[in-house]
């Protein structure tokens, strides 16, 4: 998914990439049941000197993942959605205390080959801070990891599409449930993400700062996790996701 971060390269980014490599380090655990994939990701992002990403642990199934995460307490976990032993959702469930931890909370970034709606919505509802597919380039992945570490949400265009779809029908009922509703601005931001814009491009387009874009996206993610109300349920049932 090339549209997530700065596709034009990380060199120009102020908050990540080579510029901040000295100051910023992030400890990452890789959870994926394919060893080859882990090796590939490790090779791509694991050169700590250049990318600032330090892979401190790997796991191949749910039990291992929980053990490794408990032992190493990384800042970011790259989590595969389909895992033996219950899947990524199970890992999220069992690591919920770490996510809520006050200091250095563990943040999860789902990294999956599937971009099916049920997978995406499932792990986001489980508490993952973002969702990227495995077609992502190494530079974008590093960027996403830093973004997630900052507490921001990382949305792929497809994920933005799902969220828009989920909230699309909620404009009509006049019931006052602000928590579940996306503001006009958030919809606009999501729409641009779905159209393949990077955060920076969205900022330029809407004449707002990148930080504002990120806070909008984080708000959407928060609403998505909180909104166990009828809209999302109805949407999911209509698609036989639940």
């Amino acid at each position, binding site marked *: *998914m*090339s*549209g997530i971060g700065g*596709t*034009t390269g990380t060199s120009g980014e102020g908050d990540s990439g080579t510029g901040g490599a000295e100051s910023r380090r992030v400890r990452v655990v890789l959870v994926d049941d394919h060893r080859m994939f882990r090796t590939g990701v490790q090779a791509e992002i694991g050169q700590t000197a250049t990318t600032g990403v330090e892979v401190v642990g790997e796991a191949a199934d749910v039990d291992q993942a929980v053990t490794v995460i408990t032992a190493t307490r990384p800042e970011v976990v790259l989590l595969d959605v389909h895992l033996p032993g219950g899947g990524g959702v199970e890992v999220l469930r069992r690591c919920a205390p770490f996510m809520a931890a006050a200091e250095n909370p563990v943040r999860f970034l789902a990294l999956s080959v*599937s*971009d*099916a709606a049920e997978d995406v919505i499932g792990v986001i509802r489980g508490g993952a801070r973002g969702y990227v597919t495995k077609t992502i380039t190494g530079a974008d992945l590093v960027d996403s990891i830093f973004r997630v570490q900052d507490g921001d949400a990382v949305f792929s*265009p*497809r994920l*933005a*599409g799902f969220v*828009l*779809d989920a909230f*699309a029908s909620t404009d009509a009922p006049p019931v006052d449930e602000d928590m579940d509703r996306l503001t006009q601005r958030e919809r606009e931001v999501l*729409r641009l993400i*779905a*159209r*393949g*814009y*990077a955060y*920076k*491009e969205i900022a*330029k*387009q809407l004449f707002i700062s990148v930080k504002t874009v990120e806070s909008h996206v984080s708000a959407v993610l928060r609403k998505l996790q909180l909104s166990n109300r009828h809209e999302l349920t109805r949407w999911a049932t209509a*698609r*036989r996701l639940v």
Partner: protein
Amino acid sequence: MPPASPQPPQPLPSSSSASSSSSSSFASASSSLSSEPSASGASSASGSSAGTGTGPGTGPGAGTGRGGGPGAGTGTASASRSRSRPAGTAPGADEPPLRKLYRSADGRLLGGVARGLAGHLGLPVGWVRLVFLVLFLAQGLGVLLYAIFWIVVPLGVGGTPAESRPLFEVTDDGRRRLRTPDRGQTFALVALFAVGTVFVGSADFGRADTGRYIWPTLLIGAGVVLVWRQADNARRAQWASLSTDSRRRRVFQLARGLAGVALVGLGLTVFMVVRGSAAQLGNVLTAAIAVVAGVALLAGPWLVRMTQDLSDERLMRIRAQERAEVAAHVHDSVLHTLTLIQRNADDGGEVRRLARAQERELRAWLYKPQGTGKDEATGPDTLAEAVKATAAEVEDHHGVPIEVVVVGDCPLDDGLTALAQAAREAMVNAAKYGGEGGAVQVYAEVEGRTVFVSVRDRGPGFDLDAVPGDRMGVRESIFGRMERNGGTARVRSAPDGGTEVELEMERAAEA
């Protein structure tokens, strides 16, 4: 008999017309199904052989005399004829796999046997029911036959369709009233009543030794029917809708099953009481319980293990089947693609194209929603399908990845078809001139009446005014087409390089 005598003049014309229609439908069925003539031939042949005594007489009669049958037929003639019919279905049932005999699951009164048979034979249901009823008079043969069919023939989709009508109907002024019964049903009820009267009369309740068995038998029969239907329902619920069963319905089913058991128990008790062995009831019950307990002790564990083995086996078989399906698919598509990729390893574009196409196909296969089969042959019906199909085509043709995000959906109309074509042109342009910058992003949204499509690439971008006037691609295929169909198109350069084509159109008013 007096209440039945005014009825025949009325049903006779209707039954004769029904016979003509049924025979014509039978003929059409036999002409459409090549196996049908042989089956009907077998039924008539076995009919003449089955009815040993009356065979020669009823053989030709079975073919021609159907119309006048119900009223005129005496007990024996109709009995032998109808006996030939079920006997004829037995070879017909296992002969052609195309049309097996099933008990009908919907619109049945008891077990769906009559309806299933009627559907199988191409006869009106009323006739079959009537035959069973008449057979019931012949020493209760109909009941036996019906029970055998009920046990042997599986419940399934078949038989003549019955439109389900509610008991109440709503009148124009909004009041609910009891539905007026139609003539056929009234006739069936009257006939049932008449036959019942005749049966009760002929059974001669005055005589003590028969009378004391009739009622317990009827009770037991009713109970058995209740329980059997219950079993049918349980089975049907397995393959039919599983979402609709509410708790109330389950309670109702339980109550029905219990009522059936109670009826059977009551019948048996009455049986014993009537036989005068009520005094030994306690002893008999104790003995019966002892026997049942003994059997349960002996065979119980074995039975439990057998059911467990059976369900295990079924699970294994389902797994094996699924695995075989996955293996077949992987073999057909993925392995072939990998072979092609190995062969074309030097040609990067071709490899990418193959990999993308295979990824898309496998993804569609893995994550497709249940129930939507892959009808690739038929054209797309909705905007989302159209956009996705178009993107896939362009992706395959130009080897540039196209990422599609669709929000909302709506059925295609003329204007939207034009929109999809314009979008296709935009995608082709983006793939051709902007493909080096990475994937082409396609975004389609249906919001209210507005349909919006954006096609974005990250290529060098181009100036629309600089395009020579003789180049018709963008002007005609995108702008012209959109304007002709009442939409708008815009081309603009995206903030960080690249080009974005935005297409917008109002949906046609819904019919």
